[in-house]
């Protein structure tokens, strides 16, 4: 009997030193797919490889042989003795394999629950497999159901809703203070990946102007050009605090750059319009006492991480809802899978033809005046009809037992005669 098997390792079972050695590039994956498909024991195969996992999804009749084959090919292809990664490998079959792939695609198995990249990565891997023609009826259906379920979880739960990165968290906060960020002005002090990312997000939110201050004026000019803003001198900072709304600070300075007194004196000139400081630097650039001033808000890197932790907690609660959706999806897939068995299909086909023929005979003889033996004649005709019609289809479907290729015939039969309605 054909079964679905999944084997692999991820960030929970293997350290990065092992994962990186077993990772597959797109071309390598294509070669590996072809090799596994060629082997005698595997019918269909799809391979995923990301920085956090390598997984091989297959259908096969002989589970042990298929798993053996996959492990051996992994080891040979990647030039790594099986003993070195054997312990990190997990194997799932049947419903568990289905559940696993659903969970992975929905980002429930990811390092950061709710991350959006994994679905795209799986789609690409599947696309690869279809190009190499290594996936078939069962895995095609499984992967489509996977995408459907992942999308469902994304829309029906709030799993991906709140920021779990520093820059996103900062923008979220800004929106809670200012409402829409259109037309706001931003001052970037210093430079750095997280700070620049935050500025990019702000630009996406259509802020009006970006000023960049850097101790080295040339660097400021470079950055400013990137953002379509203007560079200012470091000494001009207090003057610009007067007119901007959001200040992101990320310098390497060991000292405080903006003090409470400076801001206190600037606020009246701003007519107390709110001011939001995002201090990503360690040691901190912005005097934390500024937070005590009216209408001024300061969040340092610990505070931002605190926001992220809260959001992660929310995500994990939402993840529970996701698991329930997956439970439903697994059952639904199992029902389809079971219907792929030959015998039920043949029985259902026969039943369908029988009901059609019976109905037509009834209509025809209704208005006729028939004797009992006439009716029996029609009955015999009906059975002969059905037997003759079913003869070749039955032979074909039953041929080769329940091998993988058969599922194509079964699938088409079910679709042709609309047996799934």
């Amino acid at each position, binding site marked *: 009997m054909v079964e679905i098997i999944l084997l692999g390792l991820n960030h929970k079972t293997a350290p990065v030193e092992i994962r990186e050695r077993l990772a597959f590039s797109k071309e390598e994956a294509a070669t590996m797919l072809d090799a596994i498909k060629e082997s005698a024991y595997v019918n269909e195969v799809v391979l995923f490889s990301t920085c956090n996992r390598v997984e091989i999804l297959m259908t096969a009749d002989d589970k042990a042989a298929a798993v053996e084959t996959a492990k051996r090919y992994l080891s040979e292809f990647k030039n790594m003795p099986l003993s070195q990664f054997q312990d990190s490998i997990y194997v799932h079959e049947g419903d568990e394999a289905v559940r696993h792939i659903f969970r992975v695609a929905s980002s429930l198995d990811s390092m950061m629950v709710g991350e959006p990249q994994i679905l795209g990565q799986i789609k690409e891997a599947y696309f690869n497999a279809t190009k190499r023609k290594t996936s078939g009826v069962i895995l095609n259906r499984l992967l489509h159901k996977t995408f459907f379920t992942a999308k469902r979880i994304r829309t029906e739960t709030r799993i991906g809703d709140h920021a779990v990165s520093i820059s996103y968290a900062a923008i979220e906060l800004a929106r*809670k203070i200012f409402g829409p960020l259109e037309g706001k002005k931003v001052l970037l002090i210093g430079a750095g990946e997280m700070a620049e990312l935050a500025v990019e997000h702000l630009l996406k939110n259509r802020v009006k102007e970006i000023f960049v201050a850097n101790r080295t004026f040339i660097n400021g000019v470079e950055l400013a050009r990137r953002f379509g803003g203007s560079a200012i001198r470091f000494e001009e900072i207090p003057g610009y605090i007067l007119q901007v709304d959001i200040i992101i600070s990320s310098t390497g300075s060991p000292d405080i750059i903006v003090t409470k007194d400076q801001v206190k004196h600037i606020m*009246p000139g701003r*007519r*107390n*319009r709110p001011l939001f400081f995002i201090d990503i630097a360690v040691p901190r650039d912005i005097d934390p006492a500024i937070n005590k001033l009216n209408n001024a808000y300061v969040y340092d890197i610990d505070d931002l991480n605190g926001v992220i932790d*809260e959001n992660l907690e929310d995500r994990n609660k939402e993840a529970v809802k996701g698991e329930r959706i997956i439970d439903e999806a697994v059952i639904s897939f199992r029902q389809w899978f079971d219907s792929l068995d030959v015998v039920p299909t043949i029985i259902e086909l026969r039943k369908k033809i029988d009901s059609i023929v019976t109905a037509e005979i009834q209509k025809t003889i209704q208005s006729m005046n028939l004797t009992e033996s006439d009716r029996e004649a029609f009955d015999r005709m009906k059975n002969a009809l059905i037997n003759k019609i079913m003869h070749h289809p039955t032979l074909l479907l039953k041929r080769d037992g329940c091998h993988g290729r058969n599922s194509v015939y079964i699938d088409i039969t079910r679709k042709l005669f609309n047996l799934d309605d």
Partner: protein
Amino acid sequence: MDNLITVTSLLYVLSSVGYILFLFFQKEYLHKLGQVFLATGFLCNSILIGYYYAKTGQIPVRNLHETLLVAGWAVAGVFFAFQYKFKVKILGGYAALLAAVCVVASFLAPGKIVETQTIFNSVWLIAHVVSIFVGHAAFALACGVGLLYIAQENAIKRKKHGFFYKRLPSLDLLDSTGYACIATGFTLLTIGLITGFIYAKSVWGRFWGWDPKEVWSGITWLLYAAILHGRLTVGWRGKKAATMAIIGFAVVLFTFFGVNFLLKGHHGIFTR
């Protein structure tokens, strides 16, 4: 008509419940439920007032019972007017609660009709009553917004986001809404006072009589004038504005009810 009052108060109470549940669970259908109940309650309330007016030919604020009915009506009505432009969903809960309190209290309030002169039919009086009630409803709303603002600002300043942070809109929206409510309320209060003076002159022959109600209304007017002035010139916004809105409403409550009960004066007869 008693039945209609029961129905109205029931609708306001159901609306409050809907909004409170919405506050906790954040499901949109609860919000819609709250809105629908509030709107229906407002409709019944309007019919009630219209009926009283038609029956007596006088604007129904002659006793505490009627006054509370009109107060509840004004709060619900003003909320809907503002909701059109300022979408602070949970404010509906505050309005519903306030309206419910007013209408339920009107059950307990005496309904004795006070013998008054035909002076009650003056157009100046009608303008006076309507603008005062609606203006005060706006101040009530501003107070509610102020409370929400303080809750949200605390959440952001203290870095503990807890219950309210997710459920409340941005500080900017809350601040703007509060400002709009106060500006509207102040305008209506001004009109109310002026029409009050004109009416007083027509009935008692003088504009100002140092009656406690007049005095306290003046104090209220000065307070809100100061709030608006502070905002426009020095930048009294944010938490300061919110706090002042709450204090202002406390003064309004005293002017509206306290004066009638605790001090003597010509408005007193309308709350016996």
